[in-house]
């Protein structure tokens, strides 16, 4: 396994290098540059434009710039943002990233869970009327025109009903006296979410050894309660207490995007789960389970769904890979200033250092996630052991 990882990492480095070169050339293919709209200003002194270009090194020939960029990149110097000088791309990304992560981590978890759940039910009710209706609803919610749908929901819930905020991730008024930056609140929220998930996961692992199924279920439920109580105490004491209203504000703003994306995205997972489960249901070991006298529900959840989990998890990981790409549209619509927006903006403004940094981030993310997917797949399915896979 270790050997495989090393080989793979080497390949990934090569790919990444190619990716960098390709992206850089691509950005430079766009006509004009970050400063071309300076030329629209009639009062501009004649040589100012040229000076600006020289300052940013944009007057050098393409090949030279490319070389410079690559060399600097591997030294760790990513340059400065053209548009938000003197901020570096790293600063900008650090500012935006937690926002995207928080929102889309929740979004993905919720929509995958919903999708898996519905897919399970769909496969089990094969052939019945409810299957047809649920599938039709899923399909048409999957194919609905996303921008329109999202805007509609914003309009209904934000404007007409006034229940949920219309955009952005906080109410500026509430934050006037805030002792922290939103970043800090975001990062503590993310840490909190991670800790909670880890605790839940650990509880799951720990109770696997217990024989009696009912006590297993009870213990896991107890751990859930414990998490609730723990969270309550955490947020009401010490440093967290002060952050609570701000965190709550952010969470409040997250409700609508999470809801909207879940409605549109759950169908993909649901249908995938359904198909895989249906293949599994015809396997002989399902018959064995029935012969053992196990209830239908338990067969569905412990045998069929377990195997169906494999492709669903792979698809989940692939969705995580494209998390930033997928966030572009959503962030635009909900005015959620995150990585996706940064990416898009930097591309539109031809802020090359920032754009390159964003692309690199996405690229590395994609590569690593792909590797993780391959590795985890071999754990989920013990039949697949990585031999000399490419």
């Amino acid at each position, binding site marked *: 396994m270790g050997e495989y990882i090393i080989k793979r990492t080497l390949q990934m480095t090569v790919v990444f290098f190619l990716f960098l070169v390709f992206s850089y050339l691509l950005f430079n293919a766009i006509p004009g540059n970050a400063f071309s709209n300076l030329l629209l200003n009639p009062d501009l002194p004649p040589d100012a434009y040229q000076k600006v270009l020289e300052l940013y090194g944009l007057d050098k020939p393409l090949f030279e710039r490319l070389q410079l960029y690559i060399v600097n990149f591997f030294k760790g110097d990513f340059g400065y943002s053209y548009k938000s000088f003197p901020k570096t791309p790293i600063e900008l990304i650090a500012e935006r990233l937690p926002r995207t992560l928080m929102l889309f981590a929740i979004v993905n978890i919720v929509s995958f869970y919903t999708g898996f759940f519905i897919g399970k039910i769909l496969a089990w009710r094969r052939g019945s009327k409810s299957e047809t209706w649920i599938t039709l609803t899923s399909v048409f919610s999957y194919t609905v025109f996303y921008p329109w749908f999202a805007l509609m929901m914003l309009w209904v819930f934000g404007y007409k009903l006034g229940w949920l905020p219309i955009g952005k991730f906080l109410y500026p008024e509430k934050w006037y006296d805030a002792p922290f930056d939103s970043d800090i609140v975001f990062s503590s929220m993310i840490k909190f979410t991670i800790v909670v998930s880890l605790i839940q996961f650990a509880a799951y692992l720990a109770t696997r*050894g*217990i*024989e*009696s*199924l*009912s006590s297993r279920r009870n213990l896991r439920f107890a751990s859930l309660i414990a998490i609730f109580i723990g969270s309550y105490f955490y947020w009401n004491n010490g440093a967290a207490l002060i952050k609570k209203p701000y965190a709550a504000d952010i969470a409040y703003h997250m409700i609508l995007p999470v809801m909207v994306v879940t409605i549109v995205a759950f169908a993909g997972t649901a249908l995938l789960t359904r198909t895989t489960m249906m293949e599994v249901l015809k*396997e*002989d*070991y399902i*018959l*064995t*389970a*029935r*012969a*053992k*006298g*196990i*209830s*239908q529900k338990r067969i569905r959840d*412990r*045998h069929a769904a*377990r*195997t169906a989990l494999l492709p669903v998890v792979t698809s989940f990981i692939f969705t995580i890979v494209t998390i930033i790409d997928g966030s572009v549209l959503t962030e635009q619509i909900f005015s959620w200033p995150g990585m996706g927006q940064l990416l898009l903006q930097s591309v539109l403004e031809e802020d090359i250092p920032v754009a390159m940094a964003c692309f690199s981030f996405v690229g590395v993310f994609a590569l690593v996630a792909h590797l993780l997917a391959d590795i985890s797949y071999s754990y*989920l*399915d*013990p*039949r697949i052991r990585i031999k000399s896979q490419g």
Partner: protein
Amino acid sequence: MSKEVLSVKNLNMHYETLSGDVHAVKDVSFSVKEGESFGLVGESGCGKTSVAMSLLQLQADNAKISSGSIQLDGVELVGMNESELRKVRWDGISIVFQGAMNAWNPVVKVGEQIREAIREHYPEKSKAENTEKIESLFQMVGLDATVIDRFPHELSGGMKQRAIIALALSCDPKVVIADEPTTALDVVIQDQILNEIKKVQQLLGLSLIYISHDIAVIAEMTDQMAVMYAGSIVEIGPTEKVFSTPKHAYTRLLLESTPSVVGEKKKLRSLDGEPPSLINEIIGCSFSPRCPDPSSDCKNPIKEMGLVEIEPGHFADNCCVDCG
């Protein structure tokens, strides 16, 4: 005088398909006593597996028991609802499937899958008790205790089959159905497995229903046997008697088509033709199209089919009683 553990009376089962109802099990009756092993033999498609599935009511969705009774220790199984049936499954009757290769869930360890069965019926047992039980079962079938933590794909065919037997015994059932358990294995392993099964049966005093198309295996393993053709039983009786004095033409042909190591060299007879399709109703003797010397009676559609006692405990289909 051992008592009857399983009694099947006039069982009828059919499959609903797009082309019509397929009457797969016709008026099948037999009984199995405690500690006895009962064999069911016949060609592929004659209905033996359908009978087995009906006993546990594990058939496919489009299969229905039209009539008849199945009684386990006096308790009627036909007509039970799903939750009652689930209690009977494995605890009362268990089954060793054909093709153990696929009977195992590939992503769960073998030991866990056996534990699951025990947990279902005896939830109050502790982990240690269950481990002990599984270890002793494994010992009985000749498996090492380390197999408990293995995944199914790590075991050889023979090992998987033994594990299936252990699985079938895990809840101490009264009846074990073995549906062609050795078909996919080589002869050497087959012999071992058969010996294991016999040993286990004697040790635990189980009743065994052994289903096979291999008449030689049936001869070796069973006390009572039944021959099935086209969905109904054409001959039934003590294995010895059926082998020594087969009455039905089909039984006779089956025996004659199996080569014997002892005795003089004989030319083997084989059966021409195919079993009849079970969609259309069969009138008269179902075997008559292939019978080598049918009497004029055989094709008579009005003749009532039924089993007639030839000698004590040995029954055969009345059509062939008078033939040859």
